[in-house]
């Protein structure tokens, strides 16, 4: 086996596994520090996520959001861009979805309104990413800094719009009026009920199917189209991309728009799917969560679905955990996200020197 092959085996499989395990181990240490038995906590968590029908519904509902933002971060990563602005893109994307739902003729068919709402999310999400993308590509400012700034700008914009423009008349809290019924994405329990099967009510709605669909689209796009190739080539080597006739500046803008569009879909699950109105902070934490999901899922749609499911489990199980155990709140999930980002991202090479030292002699003898 050549040295390169050996490295790819270690980099691709063993390192990520060790990194995830370390993140879990570190979480266990946090549990012990706050006087909670990590094994007991894991049991409660798993039961909360899978033990009953409603729990499963909630788990998949959270998973949906993480798939969208995970895909968003991953697409950008493939072009060598770090899109830290998923939070803002999800927020503004939700605005696009809400505008469609609020201002379209409600007597139109849901078959028309829902795809338009989805397009609204895609479009507005992309719009929020295009300025940082343009500035990175053509004006040389760094995408990380500008997308951070745009997260805050999104937040300010949405507060302004919800307080001054979109707030329902006579309503004290900053939220819009309810969407018409025809702009609701059906709940899964309603779909099942329509087929004569009774399942427990949960926020899980058909956005989950949309998320899986987009995972497939992203996979096909990245590995089976010219554009996808151009994106990956730009990410691997800017110079090589230029030599093969690719314009990296254009690729940066296109990639960021796709990334922002995907993040913008959080709104369809949260707003058209569950809340049925536009409200503050519906996006909270999913943009940053997407970074953890993409890192853990190694930027591949299948990995992302698995990682998103894991975070869905943690989110839902974490709620039950907070309910069952006095010393834990659901924010333990945030700690875990941080640890996953640290060990799967920042410290991703932690074990490489050790692994190479141990495995090199074994393989050399083969």
């Amino acid at each position, binding site marked *: 086996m050549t040295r390169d092959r050996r490295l790819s085996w270690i980099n691709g499989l063993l390192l990520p596994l060790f990194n995830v395990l370390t993140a879990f181990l570190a979480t266990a240490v946090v549990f012990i520090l706050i006087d909670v038995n990590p094994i007991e906590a894991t049991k409660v968590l798993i039961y909360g996520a899978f033990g009953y029908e409603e729990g499963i519904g909630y788990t998949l509902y959270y998973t949906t959001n993480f798939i969208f933002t995970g895909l968003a971060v991953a697409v950008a990563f493939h072009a060598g861009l770090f899109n830290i602005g998923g939070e803002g893109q999800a927020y503004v994307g939700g605005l696009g979805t809400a505008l469609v739902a609020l201002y379209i003729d409600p007597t139109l068919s849901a078959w028309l309104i829902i795809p338009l709402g989805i397009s609204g999310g895609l479009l507005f999400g992309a719009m929020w990413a295009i300025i940082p993308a343009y500035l990175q590509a053509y004006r040389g400012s760094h995408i990380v800094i500008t997308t951070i*700034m745009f997260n805050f700008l999104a937040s300010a914009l949405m507060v*302004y719009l919800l307080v001054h423009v979109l707030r329902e008349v006579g309503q004290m809290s900053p939220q819009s009026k309810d969407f018409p019924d025809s702009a609701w994405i059906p709940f899964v329990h309603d779909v099942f009920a329509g087929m004569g099967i009774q399942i427990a009510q949960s926020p899980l709605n058909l956005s989950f199917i949309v998320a899986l669909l987009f995972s497939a689209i992203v996979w096909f796009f990245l590995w089976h189209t010219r554009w996808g190739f151009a994106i990956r080539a730009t990410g691997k080597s800017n110079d090589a991309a230029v030599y093969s006739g690719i314009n990296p500046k254009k690729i940066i803008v296109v990639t960021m728009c796709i990334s922002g569009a995907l993040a913008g879909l959080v709104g369809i699950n949260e707003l058209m799917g569950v809340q049925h109105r536009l409200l503050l902070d519906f996006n909270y934490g999913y943009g940053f969560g997407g970074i953890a999901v993409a890192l853990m899922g190694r930027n591949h749609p299948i990995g992302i679905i698995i990682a998103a499911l894991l975070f869905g489990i943690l989110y839902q199980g974490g709620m039950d955990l907070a309910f069952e155990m006095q010393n834990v709140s659901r924010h333990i999930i945030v700690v875990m996200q941080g640890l996953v980002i640290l060990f799967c*991202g920042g410290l991703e090479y932690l074990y490489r020197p050790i692994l190479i030292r141990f495995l090199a002699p074994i393989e050399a003898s083969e």
Partner: protein
Amino acid sequence: MNDLLLNLILTLDASFRVCTPLIFASMAGLFAERSGVVDIGLEGKLLMSAFIAASAASVFGSPWIGLLFAIFASCIFAMIHGLASITFKGNQIVSGVAINILASGLTMILTLAWFKSGGITPTLKGDERFLSITLPGVDIIDHIPILGVIYRELISGHNILVYLAFATVPLVWWVVYRTRFGLRLRAVGENPKAVDTAGLSVEGLRYKALLIGGILCGIGGAYIAIAHNAQFTKEMTAGQGFIALAALIFGKWHPYRVLAACFLFGFLDALAVRLQGVVLPVIGEIPVQLIEATPYILTVILLAGFIGKAIPPKASAQPYIKEL
């Protein structure tokens, strides 16, 4: 006229208080970025040290102990960042993000575990926090018109950390531009290979820079919780670490310009509070959100190269890999 003057002075006075944590955090960022390490984790370090400061001050009943613990906590986070981005050559931005998210989660988990509350620490009583200091001579100068008001309201009556922040800036300038360490620091951020060739440790210099940053962020965080406020509350840093980052870019990584940017952003923040609901002649009511968003808008415009150009240290964000 007098009313307007007093209003202006009070707004400026508030600006001093608001920009203090920005100064500490942006000076911390200045050390890190001048050494070639991008520090997105300023926000997380501020938040963590705010929480630890409030906790320790409440438990031990002394703001100074709170401050010490805050510095310690912030330095631990800085060293985690260093471990990931210097020793293991990982992505500096990713580890910075990790620090922010970790701080956000840990502060919530620990308030519950330690104080049985969701995101707040006990309120600090009088001498458990840093109180404002009345400078000598206020009574005498007070009789002089205008100058008296300025001295009483603007210059006197802050807590010690505010004065420390303003004293830190010339000190940072002196360290960065007038000491051997500063020269090496700047060199390692621009051309680490040259520093390495000269027989100096690139990693050592970067660790030192991050440690100084950790100390400064610790003071900034402590200020927020136990000087400006009297307890820790959920997410109380509210993006100030990022505003500090913006100020750092806006001030083009130079201590005095960064100070000016901090003060500008602090002034905007103070102004936003004052202008809430006020209807101005001609313009009408300015949305508070617009004023709050101004630092970010200005930074984006600057980054776009429309008002001067912000060029970061050359080796910024690149782990240094020694050639063998």
